[in-house]
């Protein structure tokens, strides 16, 4: 797969039509794959394997506007949604990007392997659905599907929604009801929900990793960084400061969030931030009809739209969930 991609990229980069490739390179730790801009010489460094979970579409906002030439982007099926959404919002000029859809059968969450009790990992090899893990304490095995990234469990399908060409095979890895966690929360009492979220959000250290990785959070300047906005980022002096940040963040991406799950993936504190966005997605789908942000370019999202017959806000009082 990686070989195939590199060979194809060598062909494409040969005649200088493209400014480069946005892809993944080896990161600081063995299983870390970090976004990188490659030219023809550096292609040896390109990595594509089961650890390339990160969504590269946001990097195109900057890169694609820097050069006159087109740029090549490697996008997994789920990354395409973010790419389309950014094109819809005119943050990426579709004509300046050549999208290679890369095959994906779900990406591995090394953290999950560690949580499964496997420590001291030195190497991971794949054997079909089985992962063989070399550790300092000997070789262990674990089922691949048990350690997929959280976002792969909400996989939107194997189709690349924007690719100019596709390399490799994809598989859908969705594990049934992606709203199950949202429903579990809904079933709690209001007090339990409050305790859950206060517990989670109070872990927030305001490192802004979620914001920086989020393809929908692509503002030139975030309101929380703007001294004139009145809500500028301040030292977390009270326990509501983080909640305010995360509520507003979820609200700002409402209708635009493609549910790529990057926010939770990168959170160093392990806060399940995607559960905020997913709840909004669930609400919007239930109240205003099914909508998938980034399905195609040029969509009008539900919060910039309305029908005369929309439900009143009081509908929340009568919908399911614990009170």
């Amino acid at each position, binding site marked *: 797969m990686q070989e195939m991609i590199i060979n194809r990229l060598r062909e494409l980069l040969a005649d200088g039509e493209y400014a480069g490739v946005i892809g993944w390179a080896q990161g600081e730790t063995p299983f870390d794959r970090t976004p990188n801009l490659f030219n023809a010489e550096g292609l040896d460094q390109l990595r594509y394997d089961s650890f390339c979970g990160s969504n590269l579409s946001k990097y195109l906002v900057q890169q694609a506007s820097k050069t006159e030439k087109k740029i090549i982007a490697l996008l997994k099926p789920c990354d395409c949604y973010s790419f389309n959404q950014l094109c819809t919002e005119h943050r990426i000029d579709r004509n300046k990007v050549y999208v290679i859809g890369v095959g994906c059968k779900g990406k591995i969450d090394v953290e999950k392997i560690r949580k499964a009790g496997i420590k001291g990992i030195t190497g991971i090899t794949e054997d079909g659905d089985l992962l063989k893990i070399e550790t300092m304490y000997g070789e262990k095995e674990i089922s691949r599907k048990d350690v997929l990234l959280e976002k792969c469990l909400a996989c939107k399908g194997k189709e690349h929604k924007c690719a100019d060409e596709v390399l490799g095979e994809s598989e859908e890895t969705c594990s049934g009801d992606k709203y199950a966690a*949202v429903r579990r*929360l*809904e079933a709690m009492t*209001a*007090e*339990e*929900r*409050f*305790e*859950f*979220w*206060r517990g989670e959000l109070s872990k927030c250290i305001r490192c802004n990793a979620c914001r920086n990785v989020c393809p929908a959070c692509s503002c030139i300047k975030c*309101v929380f960084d703007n001294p004139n906005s*009145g*809500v500028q980022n301040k030292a977390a*002096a*009270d*326990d*509501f*400061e983080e*909640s*305010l940040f995360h*509520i*507003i963040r*979820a*609200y700002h991406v*409402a209708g635009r969030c493609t549910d790529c799950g990057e926010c939770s993936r990168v959170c160093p504190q392990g806060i399940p931030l995607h559960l*905020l966005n997913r*709840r*909004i997605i669930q*609400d*919007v789908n239930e*109240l*205003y009809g099914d909508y998938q942000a980034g399905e195609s370019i040029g969509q009008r999202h*539900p*919060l*910039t*739209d*309305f*029908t*005369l017959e*929309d*439900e*009143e*806000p*009081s*509908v*929340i*009082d009568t*919908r399911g*969930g614990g*009170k």
Partner: protein
Amino acid sequence: MSMNQEWTPKIVAFCCNWCSYAGADLAGSGRMNYPANVKIIRIPCSCRLNPMFVLRAFQRGADGVILCGCHPGDCHYSTGNYYARRRMTVLFSLLDYMGIERGRTRVEWVSAAEGAKFAATMNDFVKTITELGENKKLGDLRCKK
């Protein structure tokens, strides 16, 4: 407010200029009563209400926030309240999901002719908030003396 005084709720009411603010004025002209802890902020249209303002009010110590606008179909700007309706539905639902008491936020459509409805709405809202008690979940505790 000192601790030994009886607690009364703080209510912020955002009213659109064309219908609800006029409805509130009419409640006054008709000498209808509602509690003094309701304070009105005039905005041009219900669609001007940024969720940030709602959260800010709670953060600074409000116990309830209500948005009043023209009835759907009567918006001075034709479509503003339709957007407000979706925005507030999504916001309130998210707050509910985060365990904030449902009753603390409300949207009510009040026309310029509905002075009585305005007063009744405020009376009812204050009653709801009084029953819910002080807003402890959303506040910046430094603001509560």
